């Protein structure tokens, strides 16, 4: 889903650079004090490295097509939406510069698909679903259920956006591009949901203090930051 350079026209790339740039500026404003938090820095670094490494592993989907983990929702649930968004941007930037996975001119579009839609949008829908489910059951179960659901959604919505961008640019017609992309990615989304839930389930059990979307009473109250480990 990392769109290479040359597949989008100037108009589409410019517009998406604008949206992504404005979102980035706001996100940087929101996280201006995060890097001073001694407990968050290693977690941000590891999450970025983990998402980066996981994106390099391809798993097979039906018919010889392979997909890979995106990890945007996982990053947002672990770190908080704005930190997660920026971590996805770092991952996309480094993948583009170092692995030439996704183009440099198309980076704005890739950020829009995989950091704004898969990250921010999916996270806020996840948070909404979580609070609805949490009224009826435990919070951990609510996190896992809605994370699984919206991890799948995050992959599919990015593929929908991707096929619209390719269609607007005149590269791939919507009538053929959209069903193919969405079909393949609703299968990839199952893998995404599986990995997201698997990681969150273990982290919630072993180190619930690392999950920013989980606020357990009594956990964050007593311990000073940085001495939990």
């Amino acid at each position, binding site marked *: 889903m990392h769109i290479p350079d040359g597949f989008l026209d100037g108009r589409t790339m410019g517009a998406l650079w604008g949206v992504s740039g404005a979102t980035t500026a706001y996100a940087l404003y929101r*996280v201006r004090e995060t890097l001073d938090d001694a407990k968050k820095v290693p977690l*941000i670094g*590891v999450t970025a*490295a983990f998402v980066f490494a996981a994106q390099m592993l391809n798993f097979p989907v039906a018919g010889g097509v392979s997909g890979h983990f995106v990890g945007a929702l996982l990053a947002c649930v672990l770190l908080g939406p704005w930190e997660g968004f920026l971590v996805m941007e770092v991952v996309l930037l480094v993948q583009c510069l170092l692995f*030439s996975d996704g183009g*440099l001119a198309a980076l704005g579009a890739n950020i829009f698909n995989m950091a704004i839609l898969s990250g921010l949008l999916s996270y806020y829908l996840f948070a909404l679903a979580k609070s609805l489910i949490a009224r009826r059951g435990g919070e951990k179960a609510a996190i896992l259920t809605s994370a699984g659901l919206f991890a799948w959604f995050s992959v599919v919505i990015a593929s929908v956006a991707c096929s619209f961008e390719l269609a607007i640019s005149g590269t*791939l017609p919507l009538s053929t591009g959209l069903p193919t992309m969405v079909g393949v990615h609703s299968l990839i989304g199952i893998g995404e949901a599986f990995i997201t839930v698997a990681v969150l389930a*273990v*982290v919630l059990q072993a180190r619930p203090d690392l999950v920013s979307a989980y606020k357990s009473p009594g956990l964050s109250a007593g311990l000073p930051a940085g001495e939990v480990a």
Partner: protein
Amino acid sequence: MKHDFIDRYSRLQSPVHDLDPRAKTLALFALIIACVLTPPGSWYSFCIYAGVVLIIAVASNVPMSYLLTRMLVVLPFVLAVAIFVPFMHPGGPTVDLGPVSVSREGLLVLWGVTIKALISVSCLILLSSTTHFNDLMHGLERMRVPRFFTVVSAFMYRYLFIIVDEAERMKRARDSRNFQGRWIWQAKVIGHMVASLFLRSQERAERVYQAMTARGFDGHFPRTVELRMRAADYFFMAVVIAIAAGGRVVAIWA
């Protein structure tokens, strides 16, 4: 353990490796922008861009076989477009290709995305194969890229090796217990492995970070050699940007 899968060949010696990372980043970025904004029918322009990339590639001493292999990364997208070419622009002028006839417009789109993707991707491969990761990030920092990006990238780069090491250890342990194949009923084991990989890396990374702060790390990565733009760097940047702009201008007439 030595991992060089990221910026392989970045420690070679060549005139391109000696250039300032800022000069390389800006020049190649200009080339990519010019290339993606060129209409697909402008053959001369693409010859110009490809020529510049080829000269840089030869001067960089990076093996051509390596460059060509890495270029395959754009293949899935090119193939996706290629499959749908016959269905594009029905009713327009067609070209006969053996048994099938496809639309001229569709072929032009396919040619355009392929040549643009190949030229742009070789620019990025050349940048990462001739610049060490730390220098690249330091160059971006000096170009006023926000600190969050450069600091997180620097941590990501360091922790990536931790994760790869931990993954290899876990894989060795798993394989020595006779685990084989990739089947759907093994998904649970793989899920647990991915999750504990995350936790193990996190806990090692916390210790690494504590060790860094104990040794005086204050959020800045100190450097022994500062980057400096020399005359050669300005010259390289000016020439490449001028050629990129020239190539784009040629496309207006030709």
